[in-house]
């Protein structure tokens, strides 16, 4: 049992939780994720670790309401307990001095990006963070990102905050004025696809952290498989980070839809019950 010590709302559908998980808090590094099961009925879902406090024995998880389990998690409160948390899973981010690193995060993807920004900066990189969302309300963790970056660029589709435009416009702004050695991108698959296409054009090495469907998270089921450089890889044990230029994002986007109809049905059932 992992007690929720605090809960914060970031936007309409995005919540942040500080949860007791002492062993994971000690073992985790930037890029790692956990699998949680909120209760006996819950699905096993992967969530990236946004932060941890090894002294207090806590980790920070950020979750967006998407399916039934994530919605039910977002409805949990301080004092409630998450039944199972297992991790840290996946390979940690390769952190070293690259030079100038652009961290391009969209929506809830900014949460797992935060520890990577911090670690990249500690390793001596100049970190330029680009946060993107449809509208101002969806830009999360701005303050923490500012503290962890040398520069922050905010992009909104509707121009309600920061610059009007897509994340790729923000990256291009940086590329047009200075040399970029490395790009890290985390966000919706469609966003990472376009970030990857852009940086490929400019020949900038790019890492994408993939958020596929998973069940066990330890390599056992293969639900998370993606094609990277023509080969099938398991995101849970081979990733979650891959060379973005080699990822078959179209296939990944297709596979993310595998349970869409069933999820919609389940969501309706859940809402009707309530």
């Amino acid at each position, binding site marked *: 049992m992992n007690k929720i010590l605090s809960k914060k709302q970031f936007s309409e559908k995005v919540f942040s939780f500080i949860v007791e998980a002492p062993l994971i808090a000690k073992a985790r590094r930037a890029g790692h994720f956990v699998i949680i099961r909120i209760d006996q009925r819950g699905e*096993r879902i992967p969530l990236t670790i946004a932060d941890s406090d090894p002294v207090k024995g806590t980790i920070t998880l950020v979750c967006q309401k998407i399916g039934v389990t994530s919605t039910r998690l977002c409805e949990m409160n301080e004092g409630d307990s998450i039944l199972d948390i297992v991790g840290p899973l996946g390979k940690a981010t390769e952190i070293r001095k690259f030079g100038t690193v652009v961290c391009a995060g969209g929506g809830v993807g900014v949460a797992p990006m935060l520890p990577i920004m911090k670690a990249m900066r500690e390793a001596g990189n100049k970190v330029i963070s680009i946060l993107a969302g449809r509208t101002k309300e969806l830009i999360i963790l701005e303050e923490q990102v500012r503290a962890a970056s040398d520069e922050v660029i905010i992009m909104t589709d509707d121009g309600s905050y920061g610059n009007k435009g897509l994340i790729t416009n923000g990256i291009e702004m940086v590329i047009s004025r200075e040399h970029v050695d490395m790009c890290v991108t985390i966000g919706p698959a469609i966003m990472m696809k376009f970030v990857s296409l852009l940086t490929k054009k400019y020949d900038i090495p790019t890492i994408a952290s993939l958020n596929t469907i998973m069940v066990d998270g330890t390599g*056992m089921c293969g639900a998370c498989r993606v094609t990277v450089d023509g080969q099938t890889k398991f995101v849970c044990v081979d990733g979650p980070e891959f060379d973005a230029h080699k990822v078959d994002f179209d296939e990944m986007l297709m596979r993310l839809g595998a349970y869409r109809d069933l999820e919609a049905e389940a969501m309706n059932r859940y809402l009707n019950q309530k």
Partner: protein
Amino acid sequence: MTAKERMQIERVKMNELDPEYRSHCIEEVNQGLTEEQARQEAQRCLGCKNPQCVQGCPVNISIPEFIAHIQEGQYLDAAAVLRRTSSLPAVCGRVCPQERQCESKCIHLKTGGKAVAIGYLERFVADYERNNGDGKVQRPSSNGIKIAVVGSGPCGLSFAGDMAKRGYEVSVFEALHEIGGVLKYGIPEFRLPNNIVDHEIGLLRQLGVTFNPDTIIGKTITVDQLKEMGYRAVFVASGAGLPNFMNINGENLIGVMSSNEYLTRVNLMGAARDEMDTPVLKGKRVAVIGGGNTAMDSARTAKRLGAEMVMIVYRRSEEEMPARLEEVKHAKEEGIDFHTLHNPIEYRGDEKGRVNEMLLQVMELGEPDASGRRKPVPVEGKTELVKVDMVIVSVGVSPNPIIPRTVEGLETSKKGTIVVNDDTLQSSIPTLFAGGDIVRGGATVILAMGDGRCAATAMHNAITKGEI
């Protein structure tokens, strides 16, 4: 009773649920023997002086001895004999391929008869003990030595039991939220009910074994940290976690999945039940690729989830199928089609990326290969297109890479299995022993259990001698 009289008794038939009824529910198919049936079947055993069946058993259960107790009606004594060598008799009685082990050596076969139903009798005794025994085991006094076990499948459980009986303080670490490994996530309820596994786990708890779910050794806690925590030695039984795929076109289409994924969703996550959050696809026309027990489990599960057509696609002929005979028989009775000597070479999908067709290559048997089985070879130009909306790939598993990747200095094979001494199961790191599928690369429950026993003895000896 004379030997001749014993030999004239017909082999008992297992009581089974009706195929039509059972293929729509998860109730256990085999209902077990009645006491009368068990005693009559036990009379068939000639009590050979040099019993070959014992040699055929990977853990050398004293078979004529336990059967003799059944003849006398002393079922708890029979159970005690089983317990001497097997930590999970109720499981083995259900899932062992007896026709290839103990029963394949039975004297009756030499005279043209049918083997004594050793597996059924084992199950009868284990079930009798579970239902009628006092359910208590004496916890031995502790020797104060802490031992860590990685993985709670049949291998880890068997090791844990043997070490706990010797007085060690055993902690089992499991990655999943349930204890039992493949017995829980893999083998379906209709073949091995979870309460049977839970009963065995309860006995281990009484012996003082502690279980730590949601803990991945190599991730949550490293092997080095276990040492710092005071564990004298580690037994790795982390299994063959990684499902194999065939690397053919269309294998990543929606609706194509590993048997591990399918069975885990249904068995571990209860995905077929409405009240559970985990979804599972319910195909109407389902192909299962492979001929092992897991393939049969997947096919029969698909049938139970409402598939109209379920087809086993296997590249060799039925004779070479690795599945237990009983699983093949049950699958056929439940209406599963067997498409042997066919091999998928491509999957095709609709505009949403959902699989809707598979292209099969017709095969024939050629010369025997390394496994001794005749090698399947493609029949030039002969293919077949089959409409499907779900494909379950069940073509074997590879070792879980987490321990091999995270323990420095651990010798592994090219295939990723942990290299161990054949007799002691000790790895290149003296305090680390390993067994089951992480060493064998994909075997059976009973071989995994045998490894657990063997490693327990060897580790105990090494500790007693002060070597580790």
